[in-house]
Structure formats: structure tokens, C-alpha cells
């Protein structure tokens, strides 16, 4: 296994470089002006030339590419044009906020998704199953910005139970540890819920169909016929195989841990990566676009690797060596 992981890590290096190269040329060849923010009668027109020189935008594209690769290999992501500070600082500010939101909601969606799926598979074609099916499709089809706004109207505006925005209250710093944590939790409830619920609904559907598939298999019948209690049959024998598709999906969700969700972040004023990524693209902030692409590429590869490793944990027949 360790050999396999090392091999996978090494084979991913050319993939990442390829992704970065393609991104570099695509974003640079896309029409648009990274200096558009300087188009303002209050700003001296000449500043665009000065900044173009400073950002190295006057060099030919291949030269800019090699300069970027060189800096990147030495761990220097460069200076963000729009934030006017090192790219790494911008990322360090945004990543913890996104990680908190996305990891909680991912975990929550996996747990609820599995629970919902298992229950509706075991109680298939009952009222409960139909109800969950309809509800899942309803929730899955619901646009998250609409759900977010509805929840804000209900819980913040009407019931005044939960805050509508930001990651904590203004004077949260003055609180002692427990009330402080509670304050953070209160601010996270709505965004985490919005992010989790759609995912939970879809994971529930996968879980249901995969478990239904598995409990029809012969070895489940064998387990039952040898007199094992039903819960052991399900949890020990059926679940291990039924979880494989969920692991694939969860592995594919890992990039989302760091990319965040633009809509939820904007609505709940959550200063995370979703906002950083979208703004970097709209502003043609090339260094920031490249850095966020790098992170996404690494996360996609990492997520696939984690999923592959988990397969062999769940199903010992799967071997990579």
C-alpha cells in the first residue's frame, strides 16, 4: 500500500503541472483586463502602465509562464493584483473559514445521507420511503440561494433565533470560551445546514440504491440463513459493500473542502475561498487564479487517492500492489 500511494503521488505531479499550464494559458488568453480596476477618472491613467510593468504583464506570454513556474516551484505564489498583498496571505485568511464550513457540512451530509438511505432501503416501498424519496428530490432540486434566503427570513427575521450573517457577533471576543463557541456555532448553523442538506439528499439516494442492490446478493441470503441477527447482516455484511459508491462520492467531494461555496459564502457573509476564487476570476487576478487552481487540482487528486485507499479498507478483495 505505501508503495502504491507513493507511486500515485509521483504520477500526479505531471497531471498537476499539466492542469496549471492549461489554466495559465486559458486565463491569460481569455479576453479581459486585469488592470480594469484602475479605470477610474479618480485614478491617474498612467498607473496602468506602471502596474502592468510591476505585475510583469508586458512580458510575452511564454516568458511570463516560465517566470511563474519558476516562482511556483520555489513556493512563491506571487502577489495578488486585486488584494494588493501576497497570494499566500489571501489564502491563509480564507482557508480556515471555508474548511470549518465545508468539513462540518460534508461530515453532516455523509452521516445523514447514510442514515436516510439505509432506513429507506430497509423500509422500501413504505410510506416512509416514499416520503423520503419525494422530500429528497424536492430538497435536491431546491436552489441553495433560495433556501438560504428562506431560512434567513424564517430564523433571523421572523423568529430572531439565529444570526443572518458573518462568522461571529461583533463582541464575541469578549465572551468566555463556552459562550464564544456557542456564538460561533449559532453563526454556522444556517450556512452548514444549507450546504449539507442538498448533499445529504443526494447521498441518501445513492445509499438507498446501493444498499438495495447489495441485500439482494447471495452472500446476504447466506448470512441471514445462518441465523445472524438482522442488524449484523446489514451492518457487518451489507454495509461494507454498499458504502463503496458513497466513498467514491465523498472522495470527489474533498476538493469542495477548500473551494467552498460561493453562494452560501456571499449570502451569509462568510469570508471564505468561494468568494476569493470567483473574484479572482472576474478580476483576472492571474496569480490568485493560478494558486486556487493549484489547490483545487491537488485536492481532486488527493480526494481520488483517499477514495481508492478506502476501497481496500472496505473491501479487502480490492488490492493495488
Amino acid at each position, binding site marked *: 500500500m505505501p508503495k502504491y500511494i507513493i507511486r500515485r503521488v509521483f504520477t500526479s505531479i505531471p497531471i498537476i503541472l499539466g492542469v496549471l499550464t492549461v489554466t495559465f494559458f486559458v486565463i491569460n488568453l481569455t479576453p479581459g483586463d486585469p488592470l480594469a480596476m484602475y479605470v477610474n477618472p479618480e485614478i*491617474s491613467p498612467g498607473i496602468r502602465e506602471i502596474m502592468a510593468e510591476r505585475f510583469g504583464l508586458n512580458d510575452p506570454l511564454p516568458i511570463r509562464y516560465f517566470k511563474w513556474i519558476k516562482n511556483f516551484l520555489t513556493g512563491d505564489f506571487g502577489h495578488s493584483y486585486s488584494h494588493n498583498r501576497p497570494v499566500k496571505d489571501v489564502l491563509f485568511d480564507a482557508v480556515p473559514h471555508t474548511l470549518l464550513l465545508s468539513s462540518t457540512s460534508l461530515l453532516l451530509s455523509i452521516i445523514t445521507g447514510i442514515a436516510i438511505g439505509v432506513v429507506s432501503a430497509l423500509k422500501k416501498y413504505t410510506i416512509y420511503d416514499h416520503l423520503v424519496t419525494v422530500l429528497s428530490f424536492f430538497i435536491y432540486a431546491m436552489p441553495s440561494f433560495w433556501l438560504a434566503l428562506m431560512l434567513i427570513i424564517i430564523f433571523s*427575521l421572523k423568529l430572531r433565533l439565529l*444570526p*443572518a450573517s*458573518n462568522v461571529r457577533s*461583533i463582541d464575541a471576543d469578549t465572551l468566555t470560551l463556552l459562550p464564544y463557541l456557542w456564538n460561533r456555532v449559532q453563526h454556522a448553523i444556517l450556512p452548514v445546514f444549507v450546504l449539507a442538506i442538498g448533499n445529504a439528499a443526494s447521498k441518501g439516494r445513492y445509499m438507498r440504491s446501493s444498499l438495495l442492490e447489495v441485500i439482494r446478493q447471495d452472500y446476504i441470503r447466506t448470512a441471514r440463513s445462518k441465523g445472524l441477527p438482522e442488524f449484523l447482516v446489514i451492518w457487518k455484511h451489507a454495509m461494507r459493500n454498499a458504502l463503496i459508491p458513497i466513498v467514491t462520492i465523498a472522495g470527489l467531494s474533498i476538493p469542495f473542502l477548500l473551494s467552498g461555496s460561493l453562494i452560501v459564502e456571499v449570502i451569509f*457573509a462568510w469570508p471564505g475561498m468561494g468568494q476569493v476564487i470567483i473574484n479572482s476570476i472576474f478580476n483576472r487576478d492571474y496569480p490568485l487564479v493560478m494558486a486556487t487552481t493549484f489547490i483545487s487540482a491537488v485536492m481532486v487528486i488527493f480526494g481520488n487517492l483517499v477514495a481508492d485507499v478506502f476501497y481496500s479498507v472496505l473491501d479487502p478483495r480490492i488490492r493495488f500492489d
Partner: protein
Amino acid sequence: MRRTTLICFLVALFLFSCSSDKDNKGSKNDGNSLQKKNGGTVVSAISSDIDSWNTLFSQQSHGEELRRFLFLKTLTYNENLKIRGSDFRPCLAHSWRFSEDFLNVTLYLQENLRWSDGVPITAHDVLFTYQKMIDPVIGYPHFSRFDFVDTCRVINDYEIKFHFKEVYANELDHINFEVLPKHVFDRVSSEEMRDHPFNENPSVVSGPYRLKRWERGQLIEFEKNPEYGFSKPHIDRFIFRVIPNQISRLTSLKTGSVQLVQSVSPEQVESLQKDNPNLNMLIYPSLSYEYIGWLHDHPLFKDRRIRRAMTMGINRRQIVDALFHGYARECIGPVHPARKDFYNSRLKPLPYDPEQAKSLLAEAGWTDGNDDGILDKEGKNLSFVLKTNINSQLRIDAATMIQADLKKIGVKAVLEIVEFNVMIAQQTARDYEALISGWSMNITFDPTDIWHSKSIASGYNEHNYANAAVDSLIDLGRRTLDKDKSRHIWYRFQEVLYEDQPYTFLYVKDHVDAIDNRIKGVKTWPKGVYYNMEEWWIEEP
């Protein structure tokens, strides 16, 4: 002009501007000095965070609004955008003096002012800031404001003299800037300044407040600056929460966790007012105007008759009413209505007159020969591409209404909605025929960068508008300090543009700000609501 006459002139100017302050309809001052209470917190919601606390490196315009809490400028403005000294509002200089040839200005600084660490604020700080602002290594975004300045010299600790290369009407405006504490940067090179900790944590300030907390992307908190040399502000704390989404900002306002939201979208005003009697709506003209820019090299739009026909064929009043719910004003030209000394109020917006528009087009040879509803000339239809950017729903909606209006006079406008950065790039490359865009005007009135033909090559004249009369009026106006003469010049400038219709000027947008009605003493000016924040007070803090 002798010095005494100049002083008389300035005094007269002062009296004139004082009297004209009263009729500023946008402002709201229900404060009575006897009842003003101290204390309390004002929480505002803002859509994006500040980029730098150092004026040298800040690119956004709303940064300046926030930095006003922390840093005094050399001079100040009244509500009508006229420059003033510290006798009027807090700033560093209490007065100034021009030399007889108007090539030198001496600023006289207040002597009792200190930085928040106790160090006196002197002319050396002003000189230091000026030197950094013109330093190409720094790359100060507004560096060209000093194009006219030849030298700057400290006379003594509280007198500083600027020498100009030539007489310039806005000499005072251009030497009005935020001043930085020299002693903080004593051994710091210009290269090092860009990443200096001061840019993130301005520990030494001169304004009414100092920065207590800054959580990037989330919150800014100001508290009173005990060393502030002018009368202390009433409100203890100002807090700004960063909330990018407008609906979330308004929700915070409705729940009371925020007391002030700027730039409420026009369609929200009515319901906000109806459901929340505790809110005051502050409505006053902003410095932003919208226009359709016609590319002047274009075979169609180099003809003035066609440009005039376009303007007259577009029902601008209807757009203002339908999209802005009345919270905008039709626009006649590039001079802001609040600039009372230059704004030519004799000019009225060209009327919406489709018949007149059609006859202008017919005069230019465009008639509907093939009877398909679109005018044509020599077998070619009167059709062009009208661009605007995707991020602004108001612009897209306006574009649709403009398209429909033009269709009625037989003109086919094909809409092309592009991303903002793409539009800017295409505008710079002159890769367009007509586009809807907007300018946020400068406080300093100098139309050179947009309207002078020399700015086609290096400036914002990206519509290739060249008119010798306009050029000479600008050249003359920007060198005329006499207010009566310059008023005539700028009146004429507006008349020429009005006749020529280089743009179709659409409308000046209003600021629409919602504020808790317990906050009293708020005065507004075209740059926003925080004009006199040090005089605000809360009824029950």
C-alpha cells in the same frame, strides 16, 4: 491681484458658500447642539472590505471613506465640493495663501495637532507624504494629481509651500491629500513600504478615531482617538461589518444588528420604509452618472445629427422612473449638479421626441426605403451593436429599454452583454460601436482625462472624441482661477457638449442610504454619508 484683494475674495467666497449650504436638499441635520449626547455605537454594513489602510497603496474609492476616520487631510471640502480649511471642518491647514502669480501656494497648518502617539503633526509629515506620492517605486494610484507641482518646500514646522509649473485652477484640490506619519517610516525604503505592517495596522493616526480591530473580510472597528486635536466626536465606536450580499445587509438592518446600510437598491426603498418606521432614508445625488458612449470614428456616430437623434429617441425619463423608481436624475453633461459654481442649470435634458429624432436621421440620409421598419441608406440598415456589462442588472434592463425605444425610430440596436473586464478591455482597444457604462466623477473638477482629445492616446477618452472647441475650453478653464471667468468657461463647455452629444448622458444615480432614526446630525455630500461623522450623535446611546 494683490494679496489683500485675494483674501477679500476668499472671504467673500466663504460667505457665498456658507449661504449656499443651506439649500442643500440632500443633507439632513436635525441636530440641536444642546441635546447632543455622547457615547454609543454605530454599526454599518459594507459590501466589501478595505484593501489598505495606507493611502499610498489603496486602489478602491471606498477606502478613502473609511480612512477619513483615521487620517486628516491637508484640506477639506464643503457639501458643494468647494475646498475649505480647518475653520470649516477638521483638517491640517487652517488657511492658505497664493502668491501673486498664483504659482505658489503656502499652506498654514494648525499648530496644536498631534499624532495618536503624541508626536506633533508638522509640515515635514506633509512633505514626506508628497514625496512618497510622486515616487514611482511606490506607484501611488493618483500620482498624476501632482503633474502641475514643480517643488514642495517646508518653510517651517507649520508652513509648507507648493510651487506649480503653471497656473492651475485646482491647485488646492490637488494638494489636498491624506497625510502619513513620517516618524513611523523613518528608516523604511519605498520598496519596503509596500509590505510595511502599518498598511494593515495603522497604529499612528491623526483622525477622530483610531483602529481598534480589523478582521479581514469581516469587521472593522474604530474607537475614539484621545489625541485628536479638534472637538471630540460624540459616538464612541463605529463598526463596519462586511456583508457582500445586499439582501443579507438589509436583513441585518431589519433585525437591528446593523444601523446603517448604504446603496440600497431603488426597488427596495418603498417596502423598507413601510415595514421599518425606525429607518430614515437618505437620498441625495451621487457622483456616478451613466451614459451611452458612441465611438466617434464610427461611420454612424461621427455624425452629430445621429448622436442627437439617438439621445432624443431614448426616453430617459421613463428609465429613471421604471428602473430607479425615481432615485436618479436625468443628466445633461459631465458636471455634477452639486457643483453649484459650475453646473449649468440653464441646460435642460434634450426632450424625448421620436419625431424630431426621425427627422434628424432623415436629414442624415436614413429613411426606411424597403419598408421593413428599420431605416436604411444605400441598401444598408441602421444597425449597431450596443454593449454593456453583465454584472449590472440595471444596465442590462436599461439596455433593453433603450433597444425598444430605438426600434420605434427605426434603429436596430443589437445588445451584447459581456463581462465587465472584457468590456473595459474592448473599450481600451476601441473594439465596440456603442456601449453603456458609467463614470464615478472626481471631486476635483478637471474634464481633461475624459474629454480632451489628447486623452485619446493616454487617458480615458476611449470614445475618440475630438473637438477643438472643447479642447481649448478645457485648456483655458483649468488655468483660470477667477471664479466668474471659470464659471463662464465651464458653462460654455457644457453647452458645447450638450449640442454635440458625444455621449448620450443618461442619468446621475442617487445615493440611497438607510439609517436608524436614532442617529442624529447626519449630513451628506456627494461622496457619501460619513461626511460629518464626528458630529453624529445617538438619541439614546
